[in-house]
């Protein structure tokens, strides 16, 4: 009877299209909301994504990646002296203002100062230039987003070799990197630790982080714990740093409410529109279902038919919705939009769609069970 159930749905094209559209729209809204959520979370810990290091050592007061509390310069050597640490390197992360030569508006950037000897934490995905050239005077590696931002001001694209200003000092581009975009839309500029002191606004202490790695055979987590115990600083793995940042955003920002609203609207639309349309579809087919019942179809079979119809509508609508969103996301410039279609999103949305379809099917099944087979004899 499954094929009969499916033909009943597929055959009524207008209703089928409406059912699938409702589920599809609901899927799109929920997927977009969750992708936005994960995207914004990703922005919140972009520094930890762009500066790769197994262990991050920060001030104990730091609660999230964007919180740059200064450390003492001697803290680098304190970390290096901990047993089990393979290497430790200073890092500066802070805000700066960039401007094209010849004046014009300034643009906020996130300035990253790397250890000149090791270039630990340097970007790995370069679309132009060479990160080793950071050792040359006045050199910087900029993010692709920075190039696009400046292009909007200058009218033409910055290339390797072009020069701009930060804090009235020349900065020559030696590389263009693919990076994740940071909070507030600020793009990343990488240089060496010493040079960052010149580009950044003057302050007493410049060290914001110490990057470290464990010796071979020791785990990141184990050594991070040892560093914390020996130095009194907070040492955490990259993943822990990201998680801590995500948690901070969840607790302290309005993002969960905004995203929750979007996802909630998607869910309500799915439940309201699709659920009601499906119930109406069952109501309109009462006579046919009654005929099947009169001819000896059991309630269990009819319930299975209704469940199949709801399930197929849900899967098709979900598939189209996720497909549309995947295509849409693939067209967006990488790293620019705060949208990340991570694998848990389709799983969560599919669960929500299944719930919507189950509710619609259960309510409709209740109706089907209550159909009197004798209804078919009424004109």
């Amino acid at each position, binding site marked *: *009877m499954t094929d009969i159930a499916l033909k009943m749905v597929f*055959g009524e094209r207008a209703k089928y299209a409406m059912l699938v559209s409702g589920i599809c729209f609901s899927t799109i809204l929920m997927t977009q909301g969750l992708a936005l959520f994960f995207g914004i979370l990703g922005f919140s810990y972009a520094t930890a994504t762009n500066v790769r290091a197994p262990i991050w050592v920060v001030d104990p007061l730091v609660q999230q990646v964007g919180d740059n509390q200064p450390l003492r310069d001697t803290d680098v050597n304190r970390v290096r002296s901990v047993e089990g640490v393979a290497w430790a390197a200073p890092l500066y992360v802070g805000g700066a203002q960039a401007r094209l030569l010849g004046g014009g508006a300034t643009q906020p950037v996130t300035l990253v100062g790397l250890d000149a000897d090791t270039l630990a934490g340097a970007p790995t995905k370069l679309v132009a230039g060479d990160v080793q050239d950071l050792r040359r005077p006045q050199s910087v590696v900029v993010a692709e987003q920075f190039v696009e931002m400046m292009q909007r001001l200058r009218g033409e694209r910055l290339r390797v070799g072009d020069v701009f200003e930060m804090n009235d000092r020349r900065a020559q581009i030696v590389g263009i990197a693919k990076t994740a975009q940071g909070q507030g839309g600020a793009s990343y500029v990488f240089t060496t630790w010493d040079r960052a002191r010149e580009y950044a606004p003057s302050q007493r202490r410049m060290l914001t982080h110490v990057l470290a790695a464990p010796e071979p055979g020791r785990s990141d987590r184990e050594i991070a714990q040892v560093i914390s115990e020996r130095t009194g600083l907070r040492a955490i793995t990259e993943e822990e740093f990201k998680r801590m940042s995500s948690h901070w955003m969840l607790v302290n920002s309005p993002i969960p409410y905004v995203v929750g609203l979007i996802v909630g609207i998607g869910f309500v639309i799915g439940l309201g529109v699709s659920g009601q349309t499906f119930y109406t579809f069952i109501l309109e087919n009462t006579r046919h279902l009654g*005929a099947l*019942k*009169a*001819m*000896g179809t059991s309630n269990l079979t009819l319930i299975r038919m209704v469940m199949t119809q709801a399930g197929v509508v849900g899967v098709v609508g979900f598939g189209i919705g996720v497909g549309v969103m995947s295509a849409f996301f693939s067209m967006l410039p990488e790293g620019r939009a705060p949208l990340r279609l991570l694998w848990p999103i389709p799983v969560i949305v599919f669960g929500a769609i299944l719930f919507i379809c189950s509710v619609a099917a259960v309510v409709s099944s209740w109706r089907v069970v209550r159909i009197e087979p*004798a209804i078919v*004899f009424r004109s």
Partner: protein
Amino acid sequence: MSSVSSNLAANVAVHLSGVDKSFRNGDQVTSVLKQVQFTANVGEMVLVVGPSGCGKTTLLSVLCGTLKTDGGEVVSLGHELHRLPPAQVTQFRARHVGFIFQQFNLLPTLTVAENVAVPLRIQGLPLREALPRARQLLERVGIPEKANELPSRLSGGQQQRVAIARALVHEPALIVCDEPTSALDSATGHQVMELLHEVTRDRRRTVIVVTHDPRIYRYADRLAEMEDGRILRVETPADSVRIPPTSFSL
């Protein structure tokens, strides 16, 4: 088989005894069947006639097991429907009853052949086995070329032929028809009744027809006239002598 069914003569297909049925609408209770006695024999076509609201359709629903009675006994093809649990009544309908409805009730999104195959599918036959049998029946009712059409492309008469094929495809012993000609013009109505008469007679099937249409009375072996929830009389179409229901015998 219990005492009621075992006491019935072998040629009795349907037997109703002292059947009551009422419907409640708020505080108002309407008694639709009142102590109804009715019998139909094997191989017989009985037409149930009478004015609107007299209980014809309720009688039909009760004797085929789509409606439970409030009281009395309903024995169809040896099954005591008044005693059976709902699931077994459903199985009874699936195996033993063919239905022909006033509005045909064909599933609009299935082809004609698929519609005819529905009773076989309900019994669990796979489509590949059910379809050839459905096509045979379509041939028998004279519309084999319509097998792959949708019902909406057929005339009323053709749709009722499909309904007849659907009612026969699983070889039921009892066929119930609710106003089978009311949606058809006179000529088509006669064609449909002739077809029904022909295809049911050869297998000794019992056919119960509820109708308002006096033009088809001549197809009946017997006419049961109802009024106000009771069977007033049962007669043969040619019979000028009216038999009171109390003396109605098989």
